[in-house]
């Protein structure tokens, strides 16, 4: 649970100590290379010193029809963040890869303008000059006044770390898609109401014109039409036509949700927070089963009263008009929702990429440990799913029904879209983009435009990637599509033969490359994804190779595949990449290649790595997990005895839906352990999620307070022992803030009794009862001089056998003796850990060890059941004790801790799902002692 930055930081400190130097050096392969510039006081995590911005940020830009690409806003909205980074320039860069040549207007063969419901495009690009790498998400919004009714926008996640962008591509993509969907939903609403208004205007204008014409006719008795009259008639006719056009547009925009619903790809925007729902009360109350339909229809039914205006003939100077702002384009509500989402993205992806990955891995692993993870982990963090799913994940272990489900799940063909392979396919292809090339492509593009029928729009945008050559240094980091197509035209590109060369030119490269676009969402089927992309998630270190590999109907399977963790590992990927290079080179051309639409089964089936070597550190841990699980709650339906939960399916697995759904969880989950990146430089603040921000802060604070507690109170050990062994600890004090602080500090040591909230009560003023000790294991109690307060004290002394009492005022502790060793490691008052979050993780790691011991103890068959029929109970008891003491190495009271945890595990496991199970109170008749400072 200690994230990599911590480890690295430690080795770095060591270098300063001479004593340590004298120790025999580590074998070369185990040593962490020192940062070459460490001596200069440089921050080893400031990877790209060349970047002009201080930390990652999100940029929203627009390709304005009036002024060209312009930045609209950044998140965080802080001038310091972007620093000297030229937003205007970068806007130009990211907008220049826009594909928005998509036509609107009158397509041939259609009488009316057609709205083009283009998919968003997702592009990764880098700008070595600026030291910036970006995930760019293009989207179009509709604006009645805009040219062709569309306004191209893009949202970009800009980071100095290209690995981060590449490795988190899917997560970024999923999160940005949400934001985009939100914007577009709002935009459709706004656009529809704008159309309504316009229609009323037109209607009104028509009436007026009609009246005028009639009046003129009457007034005119000359028998011929005056120019005026003809003009009026023309005007009337054009208004009529305009009405029809607008009506058609309205129909199109309204039909959008219905059309889209049929497509599996469509994820209608739904606000995540119930609060917002209540606040706005608008259109979001739709049932989850058909989220879009009622919502969207509602959008258009609600029209505020509007007084129509007379529409004058078009003013010639269209550049005079002020374009709508983004906020106006979308509904204000949706706009703020989007901003929230973007802030959420920003927080989620803050920090170093290794931190993000470590966290994703640890979260993924934790999720698998459904038998034990409830004890000390915040299960709500792990299960960001609807309740029933949570229930499946946590309690459904081993249910029959469950197994059935798992079976179903596992039977669906599984394909993994891998990030790791994105990474590996990242090619910085230095392409000198010839002008002719662009020219040669242009006709193709228009050709495809004209020839594409409407229903091919889905991949139309994929095809029309307007690639703009530039003399600037935009490098193509990778394209997905490029892997799909082998175009003969690749020959015309100066392809760099080795990826190494392209890789190593950080900061110094001055190669011109073409902008490439990845269009994930438009892949018609998953079979389009080449195996390289499918192989694995970066953190899916290795999947157990299937032992019984005979049933092919389970779908595509992939052998373990490493995710390249850093530059050092790239050599190993050469062979694979070489095959990719040529493919990559095709990125900008030949999209029409026929095999584009064809599945590549032979690719999909091929194990992508023969040697099966796994190169990611956490792997042994995982392997151990697997080993453990062998004996226990295996699921029949799951192949290879793996747990078939979502998380696994994310690895192993997945039909596109599966991988997609798991994406959300994954990205949501990125910041599980808080500011683990404590050692990260200050330029990369720790990530946090908005939803759990409180929890995040809470943890940090709890860690800090706990650290303070163990330093201040010499009797911290018995207090913590009380908590770990399930004896309720009452923190007694007059000052609420102080008591709450102590309770917060100690709360990190409290094992959960189930999947419910932590059994911690921060502040109680009434006398305690037995029932309270059942429910709460850590209680803050008010000390008052009132009779009620006396009652409370009386209750404390009465129930003293169930309690440990920490008196915050007199600084005393009354609790049983502790002579074990676990807590000493857990809470060493001489610890060198300084940061709360780091300490929190230290605690978590020790608690995890305890959990694993408790797990072993609980699930060791022979420890609890007599081996033979006639074996007396005592020998079983002895065996149990021996196991605890000798095998698990527990001393004295540590045994009690593990026994208590084991008891919780048992209860959790045997608990019938659905029924909560009455909480029971276990206690010991042991003497208490009074500790003083």
């Amino acid at each position, binding site marked *: 649970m200690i994230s990599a930055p911590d480890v690295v930081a430690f080795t770095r400190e060591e270098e300063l100590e001479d004593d340590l130097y004298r120790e025999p050096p580590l074998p070369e392969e185990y040593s962490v290379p020192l940062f070459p510039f460490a001596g200069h006081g440089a921050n080893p995590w400031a990877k790209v010193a060349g970047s002009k911005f201080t930390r990652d940020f999100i940029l929203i830009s627009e390709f304005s029809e009036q002024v060209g690409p312009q930045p609209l806003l950044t998140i965080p909205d802080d001038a310091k963040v972007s620093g000297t980074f030229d937003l205007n320039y970068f806007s130009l860069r990211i907008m220049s890869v826009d594909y928005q040549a998509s036509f609107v207007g009158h397509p041939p063969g259609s009488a009316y303008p057609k709205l083009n419901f283009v998919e968003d495009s997702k592009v990764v690009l880098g700008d070595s000059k600026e030291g910036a790498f970006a995930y760019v998400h293009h989207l179009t919004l509709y604006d009645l006044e805009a040219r062709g009714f569309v306004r191209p926008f893009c949202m970009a996640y800009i980071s100095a770390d290209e690995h981060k962008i590449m490795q988190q591509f899917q997560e970024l993509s999923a999160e940005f898609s949400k934001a985009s969907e939100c914007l577009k939903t709002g935009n459709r609403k706004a656009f529809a109401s704008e159309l309504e208004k316009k229609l009323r205007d037109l209607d009104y204008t028509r009436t007026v014109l009609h009246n005028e014409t009639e009046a003129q006719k009457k007034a005119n008795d000359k028998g011929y039409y005056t120019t005026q009259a003809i003009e009026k008639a023309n005007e009337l006719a054009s208004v009529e036509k305009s009405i029809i056009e607008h009506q058609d547009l309205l129909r199109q925009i309204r039909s959008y949700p219905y059309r889209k619903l049929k497509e599996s790809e469509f994820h209608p925007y739904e606000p995540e927070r119930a609060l917002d729902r209540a606040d706005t009360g608008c259109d979001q109350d739709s049932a989850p089963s058909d989220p879009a339909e009622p919502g969207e229809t509602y959008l258009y039914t609600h029209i505020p009263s509007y007084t129509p205006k007379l529409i004058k003939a078009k003013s010639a100077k269209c550049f005079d008009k002020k374009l709508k702002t983004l906020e106006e384009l979308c509904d204000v509500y949706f706009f703020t929702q989007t901003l929230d989402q973007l802030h959420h993205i920003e927080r989620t992806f803050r920090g170093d990429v290794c931190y993000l990955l470590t966290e994703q891995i640890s979260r993924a692993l934790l999720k698998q440990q459904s038998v034990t993870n409830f004890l000390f982990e915040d299960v709500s963090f792990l299960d960001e799913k609807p309740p029933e799913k949570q229930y499946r994940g946590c309690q459904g272990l081993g249910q029959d029904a469950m197994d059935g489900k798992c079976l179903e799940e596992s039977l669906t063909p599984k394909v993994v879209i891998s990030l790791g392979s994105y990474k590996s396919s990242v090619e910085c292809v230095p392409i000198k983009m010839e002008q002719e090339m662009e020219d040669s492509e242009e006709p193709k593009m228009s050709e495809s435009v004209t020839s594409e029928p409407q229903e091919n729009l889905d991949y139309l945008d994929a095809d029309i990637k307007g690639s703009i050559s530039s003399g600037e240094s935009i490098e193509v980091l990778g394209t997905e599509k490029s892997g799909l197509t082998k175009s003969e035209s690749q020959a015309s590109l100066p392809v760099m033969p080795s990826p190494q060369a392209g890789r190593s030119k950080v900061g110094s490269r001055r190669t011109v490359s073409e902008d490439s676009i990845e269009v994930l969402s438009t892949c018609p089927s998953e079979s389009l994804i080449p195996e390289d992309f499918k192989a694995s998630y970066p953190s899916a270190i290795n999947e157990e190779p299937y032992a019984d590999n005979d049933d092919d109907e389970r779908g595509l399977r992939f052998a373990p595949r490493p995710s390249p963790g850093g530059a050092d590992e790239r050599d190993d990927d050469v062979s694979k990449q070489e095959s990719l290079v040529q493919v990559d080179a095709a990125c900008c051309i030949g999209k029409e290649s026929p095999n584009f639409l064809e599945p590549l089964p032979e690719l999909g089936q091929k194990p992508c790595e023969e040697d099966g070597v796994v190169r990611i550190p956490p792997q042994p841990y995982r392997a151990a997990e697997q080993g453990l699980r*062998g004996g226990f*709650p295996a699921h029949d339906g799951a192949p290879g005895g793996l747990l078939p939960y979502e998380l696994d399916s994310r690895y192993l697995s997945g039909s596109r839906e599966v991988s997609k759904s798991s994406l959300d969880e994954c990205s949501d989950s990125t910041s599980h352990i808080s500011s683990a990146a404590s050692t990260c430089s200050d330029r990369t603040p720790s990530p946090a999620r908005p939803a759990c921000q409180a929890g995040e802060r809470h943890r940090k604070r709890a860690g800090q307070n706990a650290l303070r507690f163990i330093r201040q109170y010499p009797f911290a050990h018995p207090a913590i022992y009380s908590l770990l062994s399930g004896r309720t600890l009452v923190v007694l004090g007059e000052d609420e803030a102080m008591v709450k602080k102590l309770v917060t500090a100690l709360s990190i040591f409290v094992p959960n009794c189930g999947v419910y909230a932590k059994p911690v009560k921060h502040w109680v003023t009434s006398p305690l*009862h037995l029932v309270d000790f059942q429910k709460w294991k850590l209680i803050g109690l008010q000390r008052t001089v009132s009779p009620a307060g006396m009652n409370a004290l009386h209750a404390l002394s*009465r*129930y003293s056998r169930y309690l440990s009492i920490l008196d915050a005022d007199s600084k005393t502790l009354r609790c049983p003796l502790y002579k074990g060793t676990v807590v000493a490691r857990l809470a060493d008052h001489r610890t060198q850990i300084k940061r709360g979050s780091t300490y929190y993780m230290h605690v978590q790691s020790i608690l995890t060890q305890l959990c694993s011991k408790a797990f072993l103890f609980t699930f060791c*068959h022979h420890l*609890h*059941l007599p081996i033979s029929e006639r074996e007396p109970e005592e020998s079983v008891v002895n065996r149990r004790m021996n196991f605890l003491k000798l095998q698990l190495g527990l001393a004295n009271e540590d045994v009690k801790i593990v026994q208590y945890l084991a008891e919780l595990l048992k209860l959790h496991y045997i608990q019938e799902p659905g029924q909560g199970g009455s909480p029971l109170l276990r206690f010991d*008749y*042991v003497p208490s002692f009074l500790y003083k400072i």
Partner: protein
Amino acid sequence: KSSVQTVGEEQIQNPYTELLVLKGHQDIVRFLVQIDDYRFASAGDDGIICLWNAQTGEKLFELHGHTHKITAIAPFSSSDAFEEKNHLIITASADRTVIVWDCTSGRQVQKVSCFHSTVKCLTVLQRLDVWLSGGSDLCVWNRKLDLLCKSSHLTDAGISALVELPKNCVAVAVGRELIIFRLSGSNNESEGWNVFEVKRLVDHQDNILSLVSINDLTFVTGSHVGELIVWDALDWTKQASECNFWDSSVHPDVQPEIKLSQSPNETSVQHLTSDEECVFAAVGKGIYVYNLQMKRVIACQRTAHDSSVLHIEKLPNRQLISCSEDGSVRIWELREKQQLAAEPVGAGFFNMWGFGRANKQANQTAKKMQESTPMYFLELVGDLIGHSSAVQMFLYFGELGLATCSADHLIILWKDGERESSLRSLTLFQKLAQNGDLQLKL
């Protein structure tokens, strides 16, 4: 300062290391009655009867039917005459009704509401397959709730206790009188039943509070002023009596304060229980062990609790459990005392004990040298603290544990933590096996 003996925090002999709080009642829970091996019913002032699973603590049924507090409850298991074992319970309430419930279905079987006064006690005579209700008069009912016969009006105060005696007799405590009734009639016919008074015993000075049958030959009564009388169950003669529980001449170790503040409450015999040898009496705050053969108190704990002891029960293993108004339950062990030890226990160890026994021993050995008779004492081996108010009653379930009910509206199920833990392990592996997870999967 309380002179009650205390036991340290370390209670090695106390097996109850796990508890379950059962919530279901809204008022004082006064009665617990065992239905079968694993079920019990609770009832109290809220008029609700709850059925519980003593193993899991699960509430099986909540029976609503009475509008006032429950005054008596009795289990009524069907005899072998019926094919399937049918568990019924009979409850009487202050609303002057008696309801028969089916414990399996949780349904009300029948309701009788023809009483003129509250029924205060219920007794089932399994042998005759009838049950008796005692209010202001004594009524005899059969299983179908037909009134077979009834006695004449006895008293307005009503019958306080009822016990079955041999030869179709019942002893009924009415005020300070003990009345013996005899039932006659056929087993099948609803006609021909009769109940008539046989004898009236007026040996008690005050109201009889407890009445318990020891064996076929003897029964015992206890009164409000601390008289304990052992009766012959066949000819209803007084075999022995003890009425000096509080007498300092017999037990000179009583502290003066207690003697001074002595009120009838302090000496009333709240509850009696017995095994073959001894009668255990809850007298005031104390517990007394009366040996039937020796016809004297062989051991006592004068202030076993802080306030009145409400219920005591003898366990098979020479242990005794008592519960009291002070909200605690205590576990005692009857131990043989070393005769020769002049100072058997260090005075400072159990101060109350050292104090009391030394005197008593000196006194008694001086009075009459009973060299061959072993001396006994009650040793406190554990206490159960959980209720916040008077513990009205408890039910010992053997291995399953102990259920206690209290005025704090709660029932607590005390369990042996070790046993529960291994049972849970067993369940866990059963579940694993059931899911087929025990086999190694490769």
